[in-house]
C-alpha cells in the first residue's frame, strides 16, 4: 500500500504541502480532488522522486519513495502519467512506449507483451504507432502518456489530471481505460479537477486545499457532500 506520513514539501519559503497524511490500499482507485495550486502535482512529483520533501515520509509497500532518484521509484513499481503528458514529441508513439519500459530493458519479451496490451487498451494508437507523438490529437496523446506509464508495469499508477483539455467523449474513453487497468490489479491514485468523472470510477477520495487535506471519504460520501457538490461538482 501507499503510505504518506506527515509529508511536507516546500519551494523556498512557500510550503506547498503541510504534513499530509494519506494512504491508498492495494487495488483501490483513489481520487484526489483539488483546484489549481492545491498541491496535487507537487504531491505527485514527490511520489515520483522528482521533488524531495522537507519532512515526512512516503512509502510504497515499505519502499521509500523520497530518495530523490526517480528511476528507483519506477523500478519499485510506481509510475506516473504526468499533467501535461511530458511525451517525447518528435519520437514515434511506439518509441515513446518502448522508453516507458526503460526499467525493463533487460526483458524485451516482457516489453513486447506489454506493447500488445497497450495497443489492446487503446486500439486508436495502432495506426499511429509510427507517427511522432507530438502530431497526435490531445486525446490520443493522453492515451500515449497513460500507455507509456503502463509500460513500466506499475503496481501503483499516478494519474495527474488526465482529463485536462479533452472533449467529454474522450474523457469517458480515458476513464473507462483507467477502470480496466485497475481491474487488472493496478492501484490508481488519480488527481482531478473534473470531479464528477473521477468520482464515478473511484472507490474513495480526498479533497486537497491549499496543501492540506480537508475532507476524505468514500465515493458515496463525497458525491453527496455539500461542500464537494458546490465546489467541484457545480451543483
Amino acid at each position: 500500500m501507499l503510505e504518506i506520513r506527515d509529508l511536507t514539501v516546500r519551494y523556498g519559503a512557500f510550503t506547498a504541502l503541510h504534513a499530509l497524511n494519506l494512504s491508498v490500499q492495494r487495488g483501490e482507485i483513489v481520487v484526489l480532488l483539488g483546484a489549481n495550486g492545491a498541491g496535487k502535482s507537487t504531491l505527485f512529483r514527490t511520489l515520483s522522486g522528482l521533488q524531495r520533501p522537507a519532512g515526512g515520509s512516503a512509502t510504497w509497500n515499505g519502499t521509500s519513495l523520497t530518495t530523490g532518484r526517480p528511476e528507483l521509484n519506477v523500478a519499485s513499481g510506481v509510475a506516473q502519467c504526468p499533467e501535461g503528458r511530458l511525451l517525447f514529441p518528435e519520437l514515434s508513439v511506439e518509441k515513446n512506449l518502448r522508453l516507458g519500459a526503460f526499467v525493463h530493458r533487460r526483458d524485451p519479451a516482457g516489453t513486447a507483451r506489454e506493447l500488445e496490451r497497450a495497443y489492446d487498451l487503446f486500439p486508436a494508437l495502432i495506426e499511429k504507432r509510427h507517427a511522432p507523438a507530438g502530431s497526435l490529437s490531445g486525446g490520443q496523446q493522453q492515451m500515449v502518456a497513460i500507455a507509456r506509464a503502463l509500460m513500466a508495469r506499475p503496481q501503483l499508477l499516478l494519474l495527474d489530471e488526465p482529463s485536462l483539455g479533452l472533449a467529454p467523449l474522450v474523457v469517458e474513453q480515458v476513464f473507462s481505460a483507467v477502470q480496466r487497468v485497475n481491474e487488472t490489479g493496478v492501484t490508481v491514485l488519480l488527481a482531478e479537477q473534473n470531479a464528477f468523472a473521477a468520482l464515478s470510477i473511484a472507490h474513495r477520495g480526498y479533497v486537497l486545499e491549499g496543501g492540506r487535506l480537508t475532507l476524505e471519504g468514500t465515493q458515496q460520501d463525497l458525491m453527496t457532500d455539500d461542500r464537494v457538490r458546490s465546489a467541484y461538482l457545480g451543483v
Partner: protein
Amino acid sequence: MLQQLFNALALGGVYALVALGLTLVYGVMRVPNFAHGGLYMLGAYLTYAALTGLKVGYVPALILSALGVALLAALMERVIFHPLRNAPHVHPMIAAIGVLFFLEALISHPKVFGPDFKQITEPLPGIVNLGGVTLTWQRLLIIAASVLVMLGLNYFLKRTLTGATIEAMSQNREGARLVGINTNRVGMLTFAISGALAAVAASLIAPINAVTPSMGEVMNLKVFAIIILGGMGSVPGAIVGAFLLAFTEVFGGFYISLDFADVIGFAMLVVVLALRPQGLFRKGT
C-alpha cells in the same frame, strides 16, 4: 571544380563531426559547451602524442585519442557541468570558457607541447585519380571516415534504446526522468560521445592542417555558427549546417578570394539567421 567539391565534402565532414557533438550536448544539457573546441584541440594532440610517443599506427592513435577525449569529456560533465546544473545558465557557460582557456594554456606550456605547431604526417601519402579528378588520399579518407562515423551515430541514436534515451532527454528532460532514465548517466554518455567525435574529426584533419594550441578556438567559432545555423540541438541541422558552411567557404574562396573564405561563410550565417532566426531545422516555438 570537381576538386573543390571533394575539398568541400572533406571539410564539411570534419565540421559535421565536431558540430554533431556540440549539438547533442546542447540538446541534452541545454548548455552551449564553449569548451568543445578545447576537446577538439586535445584530440589532435593526443593523436600526435600516440603517434610520436607510443609509436603506434595512425588508426590505433586515432582510436586511443577518441577514447581519451571521451573519458575527459565525461569527467568534465561530472566535475564542472553537473554541479552547476541548477545554477543560472551563465555559470556553466563561463566555466566552459574557463576550461577552453585552461586546456589551451596547458597544451601551450613549454613542458607539455609548447606553443609551436606540430605536424602529423599523412598516413596515406600521395594522390588518387578519380576519373580525371586528382585528390589526396587523406581527403578521401576524411570523407569516407566521417560518413562512416555519421552513419554509426545515426544507427545508435535511431535504433538502440540507449541512443533513444539521448533523444528522449533532449525532447523532454522531466519525461525522461519519469520513465526511469538516469539523466546523470545520459549526460555523461552524451559528453563522452561528443568528445570522441571531436577527437576523431581533429585526428582526421590534422595531417592536412597543422596542430596548434589555438586550433580549438577557430573551430569553436565555426561549429557554433553551424549549430546556430542548423538550429541548436538539431542533429540534421548540424550536418546540413556543416556542409553549407564548408561549401560556402570552399567555393567562396575559390571563386572570389581565399582571404575572404571566412568572411563569406559568416556572411551566409548572417543572411540565413536574418531570414530564419530559429535556425534551419529548429521548430519555430
